[in-house]
């Protein structure tokens, strides 16, 4: 699949060319080529173990291809290059990753420290940090949690703090790993509303998910992964309308119903998120 084939008119935020990656001896990524255009909201779709999280980590420069080429904002990304102070600073300033498990991301004693961590590492001035921190607390309605310890927070609150802790540095690119996983419907709706609000703002957002119900609302374009390979890409309506593709990639499963007439029927089924805009 040619990377340049996707949105050739738009500058790319990331480009992968024949990228391979393995965890020790277990291959996770096999010759993937794709282009993530700047300013677009992208959904990475795939079942568990399809390589979505690995792709996000590659894009966040937390791991690097074993083979192939990965570029960010037109520059090659490699472990050696990321050792350069200036490049690392610029990259971390521009790209933020929200991990799937907030426990991993919230490692500071209080919410205040959590939000201050990123700007402090990037060398911001104290006054600027405090100003942005207050603004971010208000924006995410977590002012009352400012001095709380993360272990006291609910799942939805942890997710909001994790998002705020990344967004405080105002990254151009936001990478999210399963942002609605393990959240109650209300918290899911909040996250979906936030992601939907990012569309058209010029920010590049890459969301890894297998929740098809949110895709139409949060994405301009989709990539579908299966077993470490890119198997499809396209607009959400095209991808979501392709039942065969979704079944083949285990994003859709056959669901048995026994109807009143006593006959069993099989329907395509995916879980419905109330208020997310798309149905089953």
């Amino acid at each position, binding site marked *: 699949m040619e990377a340049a084939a996707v949105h050739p008119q738009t500058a790319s935020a990331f480009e992968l060319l024949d990228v391979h990656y393995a965890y020790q001896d277990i291959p996770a990524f096999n010759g993937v080529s794709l282009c993530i255009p700047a300013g677009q909201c992208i959904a990475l779709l795939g079942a568990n173990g399809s390589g979505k999280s690995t792709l996000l980590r590659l894009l966040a420069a937390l791991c690097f291809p074993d083979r192939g080429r990965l570029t960010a904002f037109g520059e090659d990304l490699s472990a050696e290059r990321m050792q350069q102070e200036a490049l690392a600073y610029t990259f971390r300033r521009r790209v933020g990753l929200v991990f799937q498990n907030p426990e991993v991301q919230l490692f500071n004693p209080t919410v205040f420290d959590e939000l201050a961590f990123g700007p*402090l*590492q990037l060398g911001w001035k104290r006054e600027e940090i405090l100003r942005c921190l207050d603004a971010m607390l208000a924006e995410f309605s977590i002012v009352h949690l400012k001095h709380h310890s993360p272990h006291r927070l609910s799942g939805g*609150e942890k997710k909001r703090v994790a998002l705020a802790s990344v967004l405080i540095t105002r990254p151009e690119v936001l990478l999210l790993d399963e942002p609605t996983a393990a959240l109650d419907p209300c918290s899911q709706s*909040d996250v979906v509303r936030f992601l939907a609000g990012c569309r058209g703002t010029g920010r590049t957002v890459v969301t890894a998910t297998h929740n098809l119900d949110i895709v139409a609302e949060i994405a301009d374009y989709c990539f579908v992964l299966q077993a470490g390979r890119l198997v499809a890409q396209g607009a959400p309506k095209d991808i979501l309308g392709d039942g065969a593709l979704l079944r083949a990639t285990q994003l859709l499963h056959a669901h048995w119903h026994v109807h009143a007439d006593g006959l069993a029927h099989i329907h395509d089924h995916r879980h419905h998120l109330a208020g997310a805009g798309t149905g089953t």
Partner: protein
Amino acid sequence: MGAVGRSARQPTRDDGRLLKTVGEQSYLRGGHRHGRRDFLERLLRGLLDAMDHTADAEQLAAGPGVLQRLDPRIKTLGLLTLVVTAVFVKSLVALGGLFAFATALALASRMTLRRLAGQVWTGVLLFTGVLAVPAIFLVPGDALVAVPLLDWTITRQGLRGAAFLVGRAETAATFALLVILTTPWPQVLKALRSLGVPLVLVAILGMTHRYIFVLLENSVQLFEAKRSRVMGPLSGPERRRMAIASVVVLLEKSLHLATEIHLAMIARGYRGEVHLLDEFRTRTRTWDWIALASFLAVAAIAIGWQWLPSIGDRI
């Protein structure tokens, strides 16, 4: 993004209870006891008790009380001064005075005597008692009482030495407990930071405290999962095997967690050097200064008492 906060959980009176996040999911809490509890149940109860204890301590630290109202930095400095004073004081009267002061401070900070006895006094007494009791008989000096049949003699110097050992340990531990129980842990860390403790040490302490809870939760879930699949009583070797296997699994989990946390830190700009923000606003409250002055005055009196040999010698 304002809408994101629409469903924000309002703080409740129970907010400080870890039970809300962990304990309430435990089938053991409030469960029935069937005679002798098995190994897993005892272990789980121990873990849950540890979490309950922490939640309790956090509630106390956030509640009203004399020490809770003080600036953490001044409180920490003052109480640490008193700990040092208790260790070096050379008069039993002064030591008794310090102990009484510590107890009074604890009561004024909404701590009960029962709590102090349970959390400090008994444990310290047992531990230091083991060391102190032989000294009563072994230290040569003026005989006070002879133990019948054993031909052992309790000496004045031995008794004095034992009293000092136990008194110093009890007093210092009480003051230390006051710092911990009347100050939220993040505030203790920030107080240490503003008092010049190295950043790396403060950061390590903070992360350790943060992840103790994650590992405790993991442990509770792990043992509950195991317990749900244990059909009958386990033999001794089986219990030991299970305990060792659990330790290995937890170690693996904690290593994985550590790796993930490191990646999360790198993703947010961490380059090997910790930077932390001190948010303390120095609000020069009269109370703070009075407290500090009192601390220092008591400390000075306690230290100075050693220069009154007549009283010191009489005790």
